[in-house]
């Protein structure tokens, strides 16, 4: 394995020397972010190659309005909130789920199935599943919605905050002052949607898109492929995650998402509203849609004061450039979601960065 790493590293060095200028590669997957930091990958890259941690963490990209909607439901005595653990500490307008957890109507679940089970076990409450995540978690949510419909589990519903990766990539590249030269594409998401889904990015924006796995050697080889393309003046679509990702992806998973959801315009933290980027339950499943059941909506809400998560997510600044980083905002007392989630860029910088406040 070290041989492969060394070779890729030499090729990266050579390509970056030819390029001469600053190169920015964005990863849009939380697991990539964590693996990059944990393995110290940035520390072995040439100085003109920079990695940006983009909107790859489902917790981080979720809009403030969505969080406030969850908190609003958590205040109701007739609801049980079923959520993935990472979500409970995200700060909202007034407090976080964790603070409200004292009320005991907030349950951490490991899967959507657990949430449905919770509904079956508590027939006198309405269980609201906080359904966040990209194309990777959407199929599992679809499965339980269908199960709930088939088994008439009427006290179950979901608050869909599911997001789609490709529209976000388009939005990033459509910003005037973006600085992204290429994307390291997410492994799990690609397994579902297929690497073919990134073809439009390559065609419309001529940016290399390379899918890679999560092992350090896979990430480094992915970066190497990107550098090779850039130094040759090319932009191509390529998957290096052969064992798992195919061009068309997992058709069955795509179908079940299609059956339950339709893409609508939705809010992303930092990126604002993005066309057809968020999954909404189709009308035939309206009764399982918490937004409709409780007549609430995701209001575009004010971002947290002083928190620069939005700019972090767009790759415009690195976390230590945020004035709150490491002093007022730490994993124990997070101000913004990027410090809450274990896959958030700020949390990763804090945990693995060499100096808490500045350099890596």
């Amino acid at each position, binding site marked *: 394995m*070290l041989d492969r*790493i060394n070779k890729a590293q030499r090729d990266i060095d050579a390509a970056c020397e030819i390029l001469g200028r600053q190169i920015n590669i964005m990863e849009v997957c*939380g*697991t990539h972010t964590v693996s990059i*930091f*944990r*393995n*110290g*990958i*940035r*520390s*072995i890259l040439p100085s003109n190659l920079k990695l940006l941690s983009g909107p790859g963490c*489902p*917790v981080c990209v979720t809009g403030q309005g969505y969080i406030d909607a969850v908190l609003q439901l958590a205040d109701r005595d007739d609801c049980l909130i079923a959520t*993935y*653990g*990472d*979500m*409970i*500490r995200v700060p909202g307008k007034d407090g976080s789920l964790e603070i409200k957890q004292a009320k005991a109507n907030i349950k*951490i679940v*490991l899967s959507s199935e657990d949430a449905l089970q919770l509904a079956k076990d508590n027939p006198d409450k309405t269980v609201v599943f906080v359904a*966040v*995540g990209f194309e*990777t*978690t959407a199929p599992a949510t679809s499965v339980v919605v269908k199960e709930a419909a088939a088994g008439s589990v009427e006290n179950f519903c979901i608050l869909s905050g599911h997001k789609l990766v490709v529209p976000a990539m388009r939005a990033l590249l459509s910003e005037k002052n973006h600085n992204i030269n290429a994307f390291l594409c997410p492994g*799990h998401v690609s397994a579902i949607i297929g690497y073919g889904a990134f073809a439009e990015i390559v065609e419309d924006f001529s940016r290399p898109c390379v899918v890679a796995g999560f092992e*350090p*050697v896979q990430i*480094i080889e992915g970066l190497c492929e990107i550098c090779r393309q850039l130094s040759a003046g090319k932009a191509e679509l390529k998957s290096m995650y052969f064992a798992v990702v195919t061009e068309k992806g997992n058709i069955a998973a795509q179908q079940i998402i299609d059956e339950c959801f339709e893409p609508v315009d939705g809010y992303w933290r930092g990126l604002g509203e993005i066309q057809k980027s968020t999954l909404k339950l189709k009308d035939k499943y309206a009764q399982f849609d918490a937004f409709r059941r409780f007549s609430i909506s995701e209001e575009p809400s004010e971002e947290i004061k002083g928190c620069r998560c939005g700019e972090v997510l767009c790759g415009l600044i690195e976390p230590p450039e945020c004035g709150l980083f490491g002093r007022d905002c*730490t*994993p*124990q007392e997070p101000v913004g979601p990027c410090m809450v*989630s*274990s*896959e958030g860029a700020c949390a990763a910088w*804090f*945990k*693995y*960065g*060499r*100096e808490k406040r500045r350099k890596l």
Partner: protein
Amino acid sequence: MDDLIRQHILPSLKNDALDELGDSARLNVASNSLCFTTDSYVVKPLFFNGGDIGKLAVCGTVNDLAVAGSKPVALALSLIIEDGFEIELLDKILANIGETARQSNVDIVTGDTKTVESGAADRIFINTAGIGVRLAGVDLGFDKIAVGDKIMINGTIGDHGMTIISQREELKFQSQLKSDCASLTGLICELLENTSGIKFMRDPTRGGLAATLNEIARSTALSVEIRETDIPVRPAVQAAADMLGFDVLTIANEGKFVAVVSPESTDDCLKICRNHPLGKEAKIIGEVVETRDVPLVEIETRIGGKRIVQMPYGRELPRIC
């Protein structure tokens, strides 16, 4: 209560001082330089692969005494038992306490038992306190640590913590994991009595290796560099940690010590360790280095990159994907 003591506790723990059932135990200790420590045990589950709360309660306290450079001589044992706790389980726990104390060459000389109403405790809580006699000529402390000293560990990390966590989470491969819970007094005394280069020792329990190394860096103002490839980790432990999103460096151990050793005596120390059942996989995993800006623990990763190892913080939450 008297029945409980006479029929269940005394038979398991049998020794002269305890059998007197006095208000205090009288000890004859031929030294005026002692170590004294206490700890409480509330582990869940009570029984786990490789040990139980009783074994843990003895090992934890004798290990604390040993890493301070002392030989344990006496323990106190207090049990807080929730009403309704099964007597067979209590017997099992007591038997393990007795067995582990014997193995550690230490008597339980005094104790206390309280039963509390149901709901006031979670089945059983144990507190142990221990006295140790400091080994002659042994003086360990942060102030002895110098640049160039080596960091040694007596075996694999993360076994205890991952066993407990995966048993709690009911992971499929929990049967492949086994706590390293063990009394280290024998090995540590042998090391301290036969070598002279050990500067400091600590058992990396809560917070794991990461916490212990960070304490060293903080207290000495020096930095520590370790190498990922040199740190022994069992594959099943690594797999469980990866799956649940934990960093093994932060996971608790109950049968491990970290020793800071002068470079000249590393060979002797390793030799003694490797001849002992609890030190077969002993390794030098890194060294103490000058501090560049702030005292830090840094790790060289498998791929030759570098990153810091933070003092563990917060509670790790299940990940979304």
